[in-house]
């Protein structure tokens, strides 16, 4: 299988701090690859090494078959990059910015086409600061496509957006994926990774803790379902859970609401209902939900991604 990015034992140190600590992964041609993790996990630094913006302190990284350290220009020519929290020129219109940046590449996509794709055709002659947050973000995605790149790298594309703007951005990312491009994106929104990514690497404190498709990451959990049981009074559960359930670290706020990690819901639910009846508690609510990427992260790190 064609690999678009290959990273091997990548290390980046800033003085005493090791921001990227021996990271290895590969991105396959045509997939949407996500790097998820909390702020400060080393996601952006990893991407910036691949983009040729920072030299690595150790390890190897290559993209599109070229070594990044030795041929940064060749790689830059063929990838598209959206940089986290990066702005553009204040006094140029959207069309002017796109045309200017397209001019830096050998392959150029007309600004009209790009603006049409991100739904900003009517804003072609507007300056960036007059756009809404969602429009700005869609514009920076458009700006990453000026050279019709094979590989598009988006760093936290939806940070700071409201839910509607985020959905619209997701649709845009899916459309880009539909044009046979490989995408790499970072996010600290688990549902975003779940909505968009074929495979994700879970990154924390400079290391990749797990890397797989999302269904498989969830399957690999000890328990791939969560049961939330809300009763009229707190239940007294047997401590061992008889091997059927385990209390979940999440959701301890209300003693009348139990959150359990469960592998076999059909086997567990009758027992729980029976237990509640015997202890004289009314069941107010009973939910069975599949485990999410958030649960995977919790399992791997012992804390929530937003903590």
């Amino acid at each position, binding site marked *: 299988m064609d690999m678009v990015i290959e990273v091997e034992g990548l290390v980046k140190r800033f003085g005493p701090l090791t921001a990227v600590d021996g990271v290895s992964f590969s991105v396959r041609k045509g997939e949407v690859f996500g790097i998820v993790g909390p702020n400060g996990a080393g996601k952006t630094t990893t991407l910036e090494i691949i983009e*040729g913006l920072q030299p690595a302190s150790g390890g190897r990284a290559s993209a599109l078959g070229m070594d990044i350290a030795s041929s940064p*220009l060749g790689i*830059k020519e063929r990838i598209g990059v959206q940089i986290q929290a990066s702005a553009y020129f204040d006094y140029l219109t959207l069309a002017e910015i796109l045309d*200017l940046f397209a001019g*830096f590449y050998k392959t150029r996509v007309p600004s009209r086409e790009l603006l049409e794709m991100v739904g900003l055709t009517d804003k072609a002659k507007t300056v960036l600061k007059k756009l809404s947050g969602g429009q700005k973000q869609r514009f920076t995605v458009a700006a990453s496509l000026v050279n019709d790149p094979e590989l598009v790298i988006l760093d936290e594309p939806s940070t700071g957006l409201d839910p509607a703007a985020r959905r619209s951005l997701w649709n845009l990312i899916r459309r880009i994926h539909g044009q046979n491009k490989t995408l790499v994106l970072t996010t600290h929104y688990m549902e975003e990774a779940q909505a968009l990514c074929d495979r994700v690497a879970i990154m924390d404190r400079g290391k990749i803790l797990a890397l797989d498709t999302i269904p498989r990451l969830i399957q690999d959990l000890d328990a791939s379902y969560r049961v939330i049981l809300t009763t009229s009074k707190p239940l007294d559960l047997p401590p061992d859970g008889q091997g059927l359930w385990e209390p979940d670290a999440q959701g301890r706020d209300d003693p009348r609401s139990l959150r359990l990690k469960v592998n076999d819901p059909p086997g567990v639910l009758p027992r729980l209902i029976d237990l509640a009846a015997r202890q004289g508690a009314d069941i107010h609510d009973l939910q069975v939900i599949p485990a999410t990427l958030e649960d995977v992260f919790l399992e791997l790190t012992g804390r929530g991604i937003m903590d």
Partner: protein
Amino acid sequence: MGRLLLANLRMTVRDRQTLFWALVFPLIFVVVFGLFDVGGTNPVDIAIVDLADSPLSRNILERLEEVELLDISGEHDTAEAAKLAVEEGDLEYALILPQELADVDPAAGPGPPVFLTLYFNQANFQTNQLIRGVVGEFANRANLNLAQAPQRISVAPEPVQSIDVTYFDVLLLGLVGMAVMFNSIVVIGVKVSGYRQNRIFHRILATPLPLRNYFAAEVVTHLVLAMIQAGIILAVGVWVFGAKLPGNALPVFVIVALSSIVFLNIGFAIGGRAGSPAAASGLANVVAMPMMFFSGTFFPTANLPAFLPELVKVLPLTPTIDALRAVAIDGEPLWNTWPQLAMILGWIGASAAVAAKMFRFN
């Protein structure tokens, strides 16, 4: 490269703040100094109170009236009234010809000294020396006449400079140097620190564009701006306020371009290190303001105390303004300013090295 240049020029024209610094700010100085006519000496208001009313005092009065510099009024009757008018600022000077003057008899030989009193306001420091000199000269001449001594020595004034250089002409070239300096240091400093803060440099670095192309486009844009700026200042100075500059325009623009590179480098150094555009603006002003005053934009600096004149000579704005004045006012050929040009070239090298060392993308 061409696109980048065009885009840069476009941005500059649309950026009102840049335009203000580049064009309006120095023009304000030109207009202010042009309107106030700081170069010429305006007549001063002086009241002469003739308490003697003798042939001698009337003779002094008549001769003083011939002096163009003095605008004589005789509406004050007493010495006290005239003194009060000076104290209250209604009058700049009052000269009292005392009653004793009537007793001076040329035929009677030496007698007791007679004092003419000159009241003046110390705030008028620019003209005080002059007026005291003029009045003193009259007193001396009156003395000589009384002694009936022939006037053997006198001054025949003959201006040696072929052209009439006014303070405004000199100032105008100082303003050109100042404007180019401010435009380059402040505008580039603020712009570059803003680009760093907004990670625009990162975005450019992520493209195949060599960063030196970006810097080259930035430098060329600002050189063009500096030329336009110098042209406008000189045009307004010459055509609106009548400055007389016999020199050739071309050497002026060469000097403007070279010195502009020095100031751009300083701007890059400041913008490449300052934490925010506001910090860069402050820092740029800290660097530019003292140079504006110490490099002789507004007044000569030879009389500064201690080591300052030596220090001032090596500031980059000093050779810039000196060379500009030499070619524009004295009409000297460009190569005659080689000591200044050599110093500017040295500054280009030194400031580029500092900028390269100071610059941080993050």
